[in-house]
């Protein structure tokens, strides 16, 4: 048994114990750790965004553009490409430093306009930025969401990719195999595809609220609830296992890395 002498391991262990103290009851030690965590997380994202977005996408290109202000458009174009200056208008093949500065200042200005929300008299200015974020974001989301969340999902409900071959989910071959060699394995092979199709349709029927859930639609919606319940149960089971896995990880840290009880 060899207790760690690393100050960082001690810090991690103490914060871990502070948070586990909540299992007894809400107490100042837990509250202290909770607030430290909130502060650290906010600080972490502040620094990460500054170093990964603000500096490379705004500050560096702006400084380069200002310092090369006297360059001709052609010279600056090759300089920008050589220095991999991002967020510059690559669409303009021979752009000048002035154009680059303007193209960088527009999003910065829109970003700064967001802060007018804190000044009631001119808070309406933040609408311009919000309109751009929501408008452009929504426009970009329409085809992307349609492609990935609707078309691809519908395709996955109809056919299955097996390497380079596309196989229909409702497979006659699977049923033929089942009838020629009846067994649990071949049975599940045969029913899985149709069940996936029926299940998806029934869940969609459950979420269709434009018609009262009676008759065929009511029956389909009811079956949809069963599929949803199995899905939620599986998700719950998975979540529990993930949390238990984290718990085991923390216990291993305390007993191995900190206290050295386990090798």
């Amino acid at each position, binding site marked *: 048994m060899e207790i760690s002498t690393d100050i960082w391991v001690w810090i991690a262990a103490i914060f871990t114990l502070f948070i586990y103290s909540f299992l007894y009851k809400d107490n100042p030690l837990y509250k202290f*750790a909770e607030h430290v965590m909130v502060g650290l997380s*906010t600080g972490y994202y502040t620094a990460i965004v500054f170093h990964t977005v603000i500096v490379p996408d705004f500050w560096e290109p702006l400084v380069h553009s200002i310092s090369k202000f006297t360059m001709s458009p052609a010279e600056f174009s090759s300089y920008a490409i050589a220095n991999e200056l991002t967020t510059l208008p690559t669409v303009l093949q021979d752009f000048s430093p002035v154009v680059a500065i303007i193209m960088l200042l527009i999003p910065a200005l829109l970003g700064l306009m967001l802060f007018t929300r804190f000044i009631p008299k001119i808070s309406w200015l933040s609408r311009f930025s919000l309109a751009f974020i929501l408008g452009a974001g*929504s426009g*970009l989301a329409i085809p992307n969401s349609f492609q990935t969340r609707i078309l691809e999902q519908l395709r996955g409900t109809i056919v299955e990719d097996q390497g380079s071959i596309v196989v229909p989910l409702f497979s006659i071959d699977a049923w033929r195999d089942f009838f020629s060699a009846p067994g649990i394995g071949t049975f599940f092979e045969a029913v899985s595809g149709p069940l996936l199709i029926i299940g998806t349709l029934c869940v969609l029927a459950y*979420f269709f609220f434009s018609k009262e859930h009676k008759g065929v639609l009511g029956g389909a919606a009811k079956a949809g609830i069963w599929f949803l319940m199995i899905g*939620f149960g599986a998700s719950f089971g998975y979540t529990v296992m993930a*949390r238990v896995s984290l718990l085991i990880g923390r216990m291993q840290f305390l007993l191995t890395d900190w206290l050295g009880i386990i090798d």
Partner: protein
Amino acid sequence: MRRQIPLAIALVAGLFGALSYFIQDPTVQDIREQLLAWLRLIGAFAIGIGIVSFLRNHGKKVTRQVSGWAFNAVAIASFLAMSTIGLFGGISDSSLFRKMFDFAQVPMEATMFSLLAFFIASAAFRAFRARTKEATLLLLAAVVVMLGRVANIDWLSQATEWILAVPNTAAARGITIGVGLGIVATALKIVLGIERSYLGGE
């Protein structure tokens, strides 16, 4: 004017964002890339709004010395320490910032989530009493998935795989398609100016 111009911006930016997906012209794709870069940069500024709100919210409690204000001061101090070290000391793998992330933030977040292992057990006991057919299905699926992941029993592992691959996928797919339709509908409402709650009152 204060409402019409933002609506026009949303319409133009939205229509371009949507239509540029289908136009494979290099110039249009370049402008689309530019649009994404602008959104990323404005998004970074938007995080500043969150930081100001964070500081205002906690700062107000500290200055008014409301109950538990010392914890709010701790949150501000932690934020200032982490952000200052990150902004001025860098974020490389060998930096102090990274040490604080690896040995303070990550362990605390992992511990916080692992706490749920205890509470989820008591919640499951209350929620999983098989009072209806639907609750029974939920219970069975959860039990099979949990046991199938740890017990070394062949048929149980196969049952788990089947539940995850068939009924669970069907449910997830139905939800995903519904979410997709919802996103498209809401996005269209924003672009066309039907949904304008983001403009606020006035």
